[in-house]
């Protein structure tokens, strides 16, 4: 007898899961209707059966190919999302516990990346692959085996050959794991390459959270949780732990069952953060902050990490990347919580953001010290401007002071005390200039209107404060600074800053820091650039007398202004071309915006991944869409170094060419297209009465020729000219709008083609291996760029002559023919002569237009006579020392001109003149300069001046020669301003040896300096 199969009691939840094959909708329905225990049971039953299904496969993947497709799981509240994560984490509590144990293991390994790497590999193999663990794995991999190995490993083991969105996360995780990356730059890259293509903001939030572990509030949490519901459980757990830790100040009062469920999960899986939170003992509140912000352990930690928290040896970017290196390796260790808190506090733009950052520190501190803030002797201070400002005065460690400064300002902003906040900025930056980087500029200007700032500028400290943050002010910082300065002067009943009595202290600071050239050029009191410069020079001279402590700073700037004025005057005489740009502004932009890429590329090069060694082709590995397939393809570059190098070069070249404010095209617009071209090409014809302008009823018929010919012929010519004028103006408009343009997609007929070809990019890419700093790179780029532009402009000039000229000449031909047809005369004396003369003038104008297509940089590109350089330098020195009026005699090869080293030679002659002024003892010494350019590429200059005391002169000459011989002059370069001979010696170095000889001519009582320059462009 067959045994009857025992009928099992059917579980309706199991049935539902089975029937739907583990579909997310059914799992969601069950999640919403089942009790906590029931749902735990469903997970236990479903996961083994459907772990290869589309929903459950991503819970605990062993490899990237098992990651689940992204879905939106419809949580209705943060509490519901917490319940889900508590359930999944509890279900895989063993794995989560192993992860938590791994976190503390990583902390104990410190900078031993080999051990970290082994631990990360083990974690992935024994539990699951998670984005969180992957960060540590990739970071340690690049530290142990280098970037190249890391990239190859990612290509082999990570990127999946399908449309998984995970590839995007892998790619950015890879960047974040390269070490030396600033999260701000990574976010910038994400925005530029990814977020601009994504419509869903929650997707963007999720990406930045997964890659950078940014703090989450309740709103962000629930949105990200919707996307993470079927992703690795460790990542879900980390998201919820992030919520708990980031919001410790506000969550302590919330009584939520699901919050407790997750909290229990943190405790049960041995999360150190649960211990830290427990140790805090409810001492974090929304209304207070614990001062000092950092306990002794944290102060030591920051001192060790940052070496010099005053920032003296770290620029802003280095400061941020040093911190980021800690928290991008492992996002959840106590050390990473401390470093990320420091980073977050510095970038916070509200008290809430500040508290999110400080909460991480509090948790780590409480864990490390096992003490609550109160137990560790820290005091509760109200989050009010007054209380915090009081603490600011007492704070001692520089980092502590700066952080309290930021919080004080944020509190002041929230209380609307903008004037006090600006005074706080002034006072704090008086003793710590770098603290200005801690001022919450964005938050301040979001709340405080321009008018409020100006109205508050009745105190000189306000404009000074503005000047200290002007580079961070949205839009034009200098405009606001000027309005603030003007307001203060108005209040004092003054028109010009030089009318103020330059007392040391606030007024001196106002004059020096706020009344800068950029600021004063906006004043209505000065009618020209020269007047502005003279005002600034007056201020600097007054300050030098009134404030002796800073005399050197004032004099240095005065020298710079006078020197630049003379150089500008000199260069102006040589300029013919109009192709130029504001290179200084572009380079400033590049230093800020391209630094991240540059440093990243340098890291690749350091790892022997040269940009030009690889195949430049790109491989498209993946694409993304939040349910919008095919909308955007994200390209993971195959040769990262080349990709970065190409992108750096292309971005910079585009900036030079097309930047709307500072680029060549902008200057074309201002220098040529802005009426210049039309006027230039119209004048030859209008001067000959061959053009009329458009009036209310169209182009007016010229009546001029009625006085020359009979009325009917005159009228006929007049009407023909009216028609011709319309055609001619149309042609000019086309030339201006379409041809005098940098060629680009929307201006295909542009005659100035500045685009870098692939071979030019590849050729320049090799330079990266030779440039260590971004300044070196920019200098190299500038040299190459202008050399290339010079070459690329030749076809432009050709096009002006070959393409533009014929169009205009053909129109003149047509005019002539039309007049012939209309009048019946083949030649009409004065009219025909006018056309002929107009053709000649037009030809000259076109030649000039072609010559405008030359580089007109404000550097040494045009040949300049050495005589002019000497004379300009003499002028500079005469302005610096008005009594000094030497008599100058120049002999030898006086015809020599140079196309390079202008600035070097100006510096050399300036040093020589000043040397004579300081040591000759005469106001009107005789100076002779003998020039010898007989040898190719070599310039020998003998500079002799009256020497009244031969013995003293000989001693000085001997000393100078000894210094030059022994190389001691090198060490004196930074300080020596007086004699300046070290500067001269440096300028004559060839093959490592200076070629400067100092001697005394006893017979003629002369102090002589003979210099041999190796110049290539004589």
């Amino acid at each position, binding site marked *: 007898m067959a045994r009857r199969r025992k009928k099992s009691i059917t579980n309706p939840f199991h049935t539902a899961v089975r029937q739907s094959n583990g579909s997310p909708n059914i799992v969601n329905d069950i999640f919403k209707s089942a009790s906590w225990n029931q749902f735990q049971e469903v997970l236990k039953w479903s996961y083994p059966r459907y772990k290869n299904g589309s929903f459950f496969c991503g819970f605990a993947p062993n490899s990237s190919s098992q990651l689940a497709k992204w879905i939106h799981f419809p949580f209705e509240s943060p509490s519901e999302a917490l319940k889900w994560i508590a359930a999944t984490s509890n279900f895989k509590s063993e794995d989560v516990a192993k992860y938590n144990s791994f976190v503390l293991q990583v902390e104990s390994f410190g900078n031993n990346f080999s051990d970290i790497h082994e631990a990360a590999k083990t974690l992935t193999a024994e539990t699951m692959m998670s984005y969180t663990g992957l960060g540590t794995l990739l970071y340690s991999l690049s530290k142990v085996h280098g970037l190249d190995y890391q990239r190859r490993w990612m290509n082999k083991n990570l990127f999946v050959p399908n449309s998984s969105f995970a590839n995007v996360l892998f790619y950015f995780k890879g960047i974040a794991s390269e070490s030396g990356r600033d999260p701000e730059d990574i976010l910038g890259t994400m925005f530029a390459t990814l977020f601009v293509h994504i419509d869903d903001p929650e997707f963007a939030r999720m990406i930045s959270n997964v890659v950078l572990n940014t703090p989450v509030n309740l709103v962000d949490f629930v949105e990200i949780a919707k996307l993470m519901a079927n992703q690795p459980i460790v990542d879900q757990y980390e998201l919820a732990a992030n919520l708990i830790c980031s919001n410790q100040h506000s969550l302590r009062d919330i009584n939520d069952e699901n919050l407790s469920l997750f909290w229990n999960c943190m405790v049960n899986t041995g999360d150190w953060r649960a211990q830290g939170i427990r140790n805090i003992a409810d001492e974090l509140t929304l209304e207070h902050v614990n001062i000092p912000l950092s306990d002794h352990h944290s102060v030591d930690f920051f001192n060790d990490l940052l070496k010099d928290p005053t920032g003296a040896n770290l620029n802003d970017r280095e400061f941020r990347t040093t911190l980021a290196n800690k928290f991008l390796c492992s996002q959840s260790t106590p050390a990473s919580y401390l470093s990320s808190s420091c980073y977050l506090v510095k970038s916070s733009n509200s008290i809430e953001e500040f508290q999110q950052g400080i909460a991480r520190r509090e948790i780590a501190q409480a864990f490390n010290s096992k003490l609550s803030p109160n137990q560790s002797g820290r005091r509760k201070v109200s989050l009010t401007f007054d209380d915090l400002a009081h603490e600011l005065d007492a704070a001692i460690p520089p980092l502590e002071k700066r952080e309290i400064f930021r919080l004080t300002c944020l509190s002041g902003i929230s209380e609307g005390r903008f004037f006090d906040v600006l005074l706080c900025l002034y006072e704090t930056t008086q003793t710590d200039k770098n603290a200005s980087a801690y001022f919450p500029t964005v938050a301040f200007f979001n709340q405080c209107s321009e008018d409020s700032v*100006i109205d508050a500028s009745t105190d000189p400290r306000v404009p000074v404060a503005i000047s200290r943050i002007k580079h961070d002010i949205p839009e*034009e910082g200098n*405009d606001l600074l000027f*309005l603030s300065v003007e307001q203060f002067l108005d209040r004092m009943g003054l028109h010009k800053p030089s009318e103020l009595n330059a007392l040391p202290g606030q007024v001196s600071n106002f004059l020096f820091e706020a009344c800068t050239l950029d600021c004063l*050029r*906006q*004043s*209505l009191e*000065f*009618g*020209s*650039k020269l007047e502005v410069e003279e005002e600034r020079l007056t201020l600097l001279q007054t300050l030098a007398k009134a404030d002796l402590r800073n005399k050197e700073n004032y004099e240095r700037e005065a020298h710079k202004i006078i020197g630049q004025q003379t150089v500008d005057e000199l260069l*102006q005489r040589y*300029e013919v071309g*109009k192709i*130029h740009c*504001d290179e200084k502004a572009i380079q400033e932009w590049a230093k800020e915006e391209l630094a991240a890429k540059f440093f990243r590329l340098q890291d690749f090069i350091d790892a022997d991944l040269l940009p030009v060694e690889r195949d430049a082709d790109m491989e498209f590995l993946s694409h993304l869409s939040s349910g919008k397939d095919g909308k955007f393809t994200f390209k993971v570059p195959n040769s990262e170094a080349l990709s970065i190098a190409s992108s750096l070069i292309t971005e910079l070249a585009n900036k030079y060419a*097309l*930047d*709307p*404010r500072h*680029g060549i*095209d*902008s*200057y074309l*617009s*201002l*220098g*040529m297209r*802005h*009426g*210049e071209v*039309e*006027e230039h090409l*119209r004048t030859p014809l209008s001067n000959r009465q061959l053009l009329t*302008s*458009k*009036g*209310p*009823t*169209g182009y007016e018929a010229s009546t001029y020729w009625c006085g020359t010919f009979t009325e009917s012929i005159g009228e006929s010519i007049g009407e023909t000219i009216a028609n011709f004028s*319309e055609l001619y*103006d*149309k042609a000019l*408009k086309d030339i201006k709008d379409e041809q005098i343009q940098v060629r*680009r997609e*929307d201006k295909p007929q542009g005659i100035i083609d500045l685009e870098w070809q692939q071979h030019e990019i590849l050729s320049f890419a090799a330079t990266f291996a030779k440039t260590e700093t971004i300044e070196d790179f920019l200098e190299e780029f500038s040299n190459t760029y202008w050399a290339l532009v010079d070459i690329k402009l030749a076809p432009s000039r050709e096009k002006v002559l070959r393409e533009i000229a014929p169009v205009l000449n053909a129109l003149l031909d047509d005019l002539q023919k039309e007049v012939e047809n209309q009048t019946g005369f083949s030649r009409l004396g004065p009219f025909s002569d006018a056309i002929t003369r107009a053709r000649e003038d037009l030809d000259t104008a076109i030649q000039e237009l072609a010559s405008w297509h030359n580089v*007109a940089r*404000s550097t040494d590109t045009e040949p300049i006579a050495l005589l002019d350089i000497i004379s300009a330098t003499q002028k500079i020195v005469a302005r610096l020392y008005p009594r000094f009026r030497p008599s100058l005699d120049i002999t030898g090869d006086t015809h020599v001109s140079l196309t390079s080293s202008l600035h070097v030679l100006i510096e050399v002659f300036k040093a020589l003149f000043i040397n004579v002024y300081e040591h000759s003892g005469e106001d009107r010494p005789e100076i002779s300069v003998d020039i010898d350019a007989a040898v190719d590429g070599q310039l020998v200059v003998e500079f002799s001046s009256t020497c009244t005391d031969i013995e003293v002169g000989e001693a000085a000459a001997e000393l100078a020669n000894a210094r030059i011989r022994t190389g001691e002059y090198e060490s004196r370069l930074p300080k020596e301003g007086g004699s300046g001979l070290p500067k001269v010696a440096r300028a004559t170095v060839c093959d490592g040896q200076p070629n400067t000889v100092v001697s005394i001519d006893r017979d003629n009582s002369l102090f002589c300096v003979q210099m041999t320059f190796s110049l290539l462009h004589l």
Partner: protein
Amino acid sequence: MKILLVEDHLAKRMAIKDFVLKEFPDDTLEEADCLIHGLRKARDLEPDYILLDMSLPNYPSKDRGTRATDMRPFAGTEFLRRIRRMNFDTKVLIVSMFETFGVAPSLITLNGLDEEMSERYPDIYLSAIHYATSNDEWQSHIKKFHSAIEANK
């Protein structure tokens, strides 16, 4: 009415000046060829309305164009910002030879600037009109705005 014309381009300045004086012979017209001089004249004369170019040099330049580093592409917006703080009753009409400023993707159209300035300076800003030698639309615009200002006086 007192009119101030701030325009650096000589031919355009002459064309506008000729038109205004011919069309409104009872008006007085003052001229300035750069931002700072324009602001000075505005402050001193308190004109009833101002015809303003968008791109201007900070100071006058003898050989404008050969070295245009002094040019300020958005001088017009700065002019409005400053004039607003001078607190006198005036209206500003931008007359530009260009319909676009900058280069894509940062291209700003004259219409875009018009909207921005209408929002920021509603009390003084009138409109932005396009000037071209090849058409006379700018003339009818100036006439229209002139009448409107006169009617509100």
